[in-house]
């Protein structure tokens, strides 16, 4: 009994921090409709700034609790100011860009802040020195419970009450609630949106900073805090219902309790458990506990997806020439170039498979790396447990990924928009958690080594040719399908589900088909990658890998069929050159992403296409 009580209290304490972060995220999303990846970075900055400010205050006035509280508040406000600044400098310029580009820009900010934090605070974990009053315990049911945790339990409800007061009793709060329901209407009534949005960003970022600040005494400030927390915060926000603060509170309680008890009951699968809870909630209540179906945001740009036409012949010739040069590379280039070319082929297919469901299907996945990783693990596990040779492993990889795609997709394609994206993210995190935590089966963090190709494919050029044949062949097949009746049905279901059903199409089944095809493609890419590297690791399934895929597709342009190919080549080249040339590659990559989004809201290929069409008249074939 006592043990249950203590775990329950621990859960409540953790729920407070989780709620602070999630409430900020949900308020920002509700008003600006931006899925702000940088929110985790604000949380991290909150922890780092608290570390710096509190220590400075303590050096000056002694290790007093009051100064600690002052430090926490100062840090939170500073983070709020940083958030407002980022909103004014960057996000304000892209509110009218497609949702995904805003997401990408915010991910660019994540990368930049990571490197800035590294530059300022260094790579070491920074624990806050704990004066005696921070280390006290209280006696609860015969067990010792940290007093600080006990205080934390009340922080969450206190902030909820403050937010309630703010939203119900102040003019700003009324405007925020109104804008959450219909921001165009609020603008039409003469409210200055810029002030409102900046204010909301300040509020949300402050909450994130506060969240980071209050967890500092329990853990250290460290550089991976941002992405670790953002996945959890997304889960809380989605489970609670996008835009709902009380929903975020309930969800934070639920998730924190699942974690508190999960860590005791199934220590190997806590992460799986959390995402499983989310998946179950979304299946029962597709808009979260207290969420409502999103009012269809009126298309800010009025953009209609353009007609897809076969690429100009010159593009085909250029592609063929590039392919020939790549295939001939082993005769004139060194092994490094050949390795890079294999990776390029893999990532072209990886990006093309995501584009297949994202572009023609309108199904945005935040977790496409799951299927890449499942392919890689499918091959590796096949080798480890069934001793299958490479030839069978390459077949096993897409089938393994495709089978999971069928299961996950069955749930995912019933949702749309941000909820769909979040569910795909959750599924990807489940897969990642299984690979990471289930050490006996998957090798955990150490991965599975010795995944080498068969003898005939080990030569200098042999594996490159195999990779090119498989990956480029599959990519061309995906293109072919886009132009085939199935691709048209997929676009039909995206353009108008009503009309699609009225001409006899089963839109859900068509989307599921696309989901599985995309998973097959990513799985093949993962399989080829596994044999190229000789090993598989959980990082293949991590969030950054999924973001890589999104970046490649968006960089190239969603609306063009050639986009993902251009994007994969550009991204990988950029990544490799930037990575090797600079110490601060994250910052530069982040900056590059932000600038690219500002300059080309339609992606590179989309931009070129627009220029091309403008030169030849708007409806030229």
């Amino acid at each position: 009994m006592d043990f249950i009580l203590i775990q329950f209290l621990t859960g409540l304490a953790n729920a407070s921090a989780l709620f602070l972060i999630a409430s900020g995220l949900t308020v920002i999303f509700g008003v600006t409709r931006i899925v702000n990846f940088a929110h985790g970075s604000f949380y991290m900055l909150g922890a780092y700034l608290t570390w710096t400010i509190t220590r400075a205050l303590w050096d000056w006035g002694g290790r007093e609790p009051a100064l600690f509280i002052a430090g926490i508040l100062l840090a939170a406000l500073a983070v709020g100011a940083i958030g407002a600044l980022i909103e004014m400098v960057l996000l304000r310029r892209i509110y009218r860009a497609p949702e995904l580009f805003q997401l990408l820009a915010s991910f660019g900010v994540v990368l930049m802040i990571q490197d800035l934090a590294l530059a300022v605070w260094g790579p070491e974990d920074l624990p806050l020195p704990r004066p005696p009053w921070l280390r006290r315990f209280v006696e609860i049911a015969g067990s010792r419970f940290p007093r600080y945790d006990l205080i934390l339990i009340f922080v969450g409800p206190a902030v909820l009450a403050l937010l309630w007061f703010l939203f119900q009793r102040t003019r700003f709060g009324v405007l925020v609630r109104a804008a959450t329901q219909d921001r165009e209407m609020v603008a039409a009534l003469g409210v200055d949106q810029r002030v409102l949005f900046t204010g909301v960003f300040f509020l949300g970022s402050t909450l994130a900073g506060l969240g980071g600040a209050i967890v500092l005494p329990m853990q250290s400030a460290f550089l991976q805090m941002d992405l670790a927390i953002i996945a959890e915060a997304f889960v809380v926000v989605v489970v609670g219902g996008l835009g709902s603060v009380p929903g975020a509170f309930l969800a934070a309680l639920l998730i924190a309790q699942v974690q508190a008890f999960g860590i005791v009951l199934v220590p190997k699968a806590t992460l799986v458990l959390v995402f499983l809870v989310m998946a179950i909630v979304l299946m029962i209540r597709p808009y979260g506990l207290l969420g409502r179906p999103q009012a269809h945001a009126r298309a800010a740009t009025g953009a209609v997806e353009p007609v897809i036409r076969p690429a100009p012949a010159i593009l085909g010739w250029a592609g063929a020439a590039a392919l020939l040069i790549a295939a001939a590379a082993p005769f004139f280039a060194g092994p490094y170039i050949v390795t890079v070319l294999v990776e390029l082929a893999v990532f072209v297919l990886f990006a093309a498979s995501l584009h297949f469901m994202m572009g023609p299907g309108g199904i945005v996945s935040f977790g496409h790396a799951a299927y890449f990783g499942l392919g890689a693990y499918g091959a590796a596990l096949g080798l480890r447990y069934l001793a299958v040779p490479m030839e069978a492993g390459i077949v096993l990889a897409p089938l393994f990924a495709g089978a999971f795609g069928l299961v996950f997709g069955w749930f995912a394609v019933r949702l749309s928009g941000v909820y769909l994206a979040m569910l795909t993210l959750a599924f990807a995190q489940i897969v990642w958690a299984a690979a990471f935590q289930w050490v006996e089966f998957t090798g955990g963090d150490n991965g599975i080594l010795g995944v080498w190709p068969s003898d005939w494919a080990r030569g200098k050029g042999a594996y490159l040719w195999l990779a090119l044949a498989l990956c480029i062949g599959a990519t061309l097949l995906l293109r072919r399908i886009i132009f085939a009746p199935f691709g048209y049905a997929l676009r039909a279901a995206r353009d108008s589900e009503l009309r699609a059903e009225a001409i006899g199409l089963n839109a859900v089944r068509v989307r599921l088909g696309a989901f599985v095809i995309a998973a097959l493609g990513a799985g093949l890419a993962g399989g080829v990658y596994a044999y190229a590297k000789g090993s598989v690791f959980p990082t293949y399934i991590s969030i950054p890998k999924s973001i890589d895929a999104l970046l490649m597709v968006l960089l190239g342009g969603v609306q063009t069929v050639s986009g993902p190919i251009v994007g994969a080549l550009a991204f990988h080249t950029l990544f490799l050159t930037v990575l090797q040339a600079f110490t601060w590659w994250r910052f530069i990559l982040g900056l590059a992403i932000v600038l690219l989004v500002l300059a080309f809201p339609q992606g590179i290929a989309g931009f070129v296409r627009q220029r091309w069409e403008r030169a030849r008249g708007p409806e030229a074939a």
Partner: protein
Amino acid sequence: MSATVLEARSLSKRFGGVHAVNDVSLAVRAGEMLALIGPNGAGKSTCFNLLNGQLRADAGEVRLSGQTLTGLPPRAIWRLGVGRTFQITATFASMTVRENVQCALLSHHGRIWTFWRAARRQFVAESDALLAQVGMLEQADRPCGVLAYGDLKRVELAMALANDPKLLLMDEPTAGMAPSERIALMELTKSLVRARGLACLFTEHDMDVVFGHADRIIVMNRGALIAEGDAASVRANPAVREVYLGSGETSGGH
């Protein structure tokens, strides 16, 4: 007299306390244009959505040439031969006019789950023939996203005809169109209905369109049928006059 194509018996649908459709029965014969009219909130759209499968009736039955449609999803009803156009046009904006019709034809011929042959090379002649019938052949290569509203309505009509339907369901076919366009579209519809022996049920607010093109008119108010007959008898019906009271004449009123 020609055969009955669509028959609805005692359809009812409640939304909470509102009896949106209350014991409505109707029948449409081959080659007939039947107009369903009534003031706003009379239950026309609900009635329509019960017929096309968008909504499930609480009670009653719908039959198409004797085959029961009750409880089937819209896509199954389409396969049995019901073409639809929408109050607010719904076409595939990222495709050309011809591709829109090709999509409907591909679905009709069960080619959707094929992955190899380019869609734009299939059923070209058939789609062009349909587009010629609705007068859209010259614009076949334009994207649907840039078309004028009246032209979109024509594309919808061509798509609705793609599966060689027995019945056309048109929800406010001329809403949002200029008066001259309205007449032209309804003339076109009527000629298609006559030539192909289709049954056509449409709702409409424009009384010129209704009285000018319907063979028969049924009138709904507050979920129930209150009158049925040809233009003259409906015009003379005191119950109908009462429903549309205030406008003196029903003509031109909304």
